């Protein structure tokens, strides 16, 4: 269970860092996970809902669907949506970060080598997710 909570904390921290890019919030590390067991999930899978994390752009809450110690899916339960930037993040960055979270976990990689990214490109990158503890 400890590993699961760490995984949740790491992912929440990653998402919070994505939103509050210039002002990484140390409070993200203190987010506590609350296990839940919705009846609709396939057997062996369970959902874990993180606490709401306050970011510079507004509250974020994520839910992980786990099978054993692996993340199967990440659901965004709450995300900022009051500005154009918020909506872009919701449409572009969240799905990409979630996909990369799961890809990185599958490949068990420590880092990524690729064409040099700019500072702005980093925010969408897999390396960014890894740096935030995925």
């Amino acid at each position, binding site marked *: 269970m400890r590993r699961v909570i760490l995984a949740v904390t790491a992912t929440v921290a990653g998402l919070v860092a994505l939103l509050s890019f210039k002002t990484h919030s140390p409070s*993200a590390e203190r987010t506590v996970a609350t296990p839940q067991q919705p009846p609709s999930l396939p057997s062996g899978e369970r959902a874990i809902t993180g606490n709401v994390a306050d970011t510079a752009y507004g509250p974020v809450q994520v839910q992980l669907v786990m099978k054993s110690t692996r993340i199967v899916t990440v659901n965004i339960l709450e995300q900022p949506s009051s500005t154009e930037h918020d909506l872009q993040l919701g449409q572009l960055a969240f799905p990409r970060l979630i996909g990369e979270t799961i890809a990185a976990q599958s*490949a*068990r*990689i420590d*880092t990524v080598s*690729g064409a040099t*990214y700019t*500072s702005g490109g980093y925010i969408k990158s*897999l390396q*960014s997710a890894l740096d935030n503890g995925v």
Partner: protein
Amino acid sequence: MSVLSFPAFTARLRHAEHVMGTVVSFDVPLSARDDGSLDSAVRWLHWVDRIFSPYRPDSDVSLLASAEVTVEACAPEVAEVLAACAFVRELSGGYFTSSPGGQFDPSGYVKGWAIERAADILTAAGSASHLVNGGGDVQCVGGRGGPALPAEPWRVGIADPFGSGSLALVVTARDQAVATSGTAERGSHIVNPVDGCPASGLASLTVVGPSLALADACATAAFAMGPELAREWTESLEHHEAFAITAAGESWQTTGFSRHISTD
């Protein structure tokens, strides 16, 4: 400065620093924070940026480019970088240059060199297991930290140049550098110094070798060569192996590259 760590779990720390127009990521033992070597490595990168940035009008490189100062008046590292650029230019038959487009700009060498030096700073302070990634170019020292002894090799994903977020393959690396040149993030920014045209034919080229300064410069030179010459040239380099994905989506690798590929 952002530090997210889980000391009880891994006794390691990851740090991401915005510098040199990109982000430099560190994976270090906690001791590197406590003994100040992580701070020293970060300060080194900002110093390099101040001296070598072509975007800062008061950098040594900018003053040198406009002939306002001589090499002798610059930081001694400038002469070191110039000598190294000349070496790679010779090694690559002119496919590497410190003057792309005719303007003095050694950035093609500086980043990999600076990242390798940052890793050296951590080694000198006693770390035997760390990794520094500068915008996609990686210097690994030792193997990855963790409970396993001997340490497992680092696992470095090679980004698929055609798929955002997916990997072409995974390289395992111990005391190795992994450098990739490509068009995926910034478009056709590598110019072939021999004919002056944007490099074409390759989508991505990765070089694995012991030194990031050299591996990164070789990846840039090979990318400029195009697929056929790059394959022949990288095959001829001692202690270096290469993997490339062409613009058509085909891939090739040098004969020794397979020993770096993770099979699990």
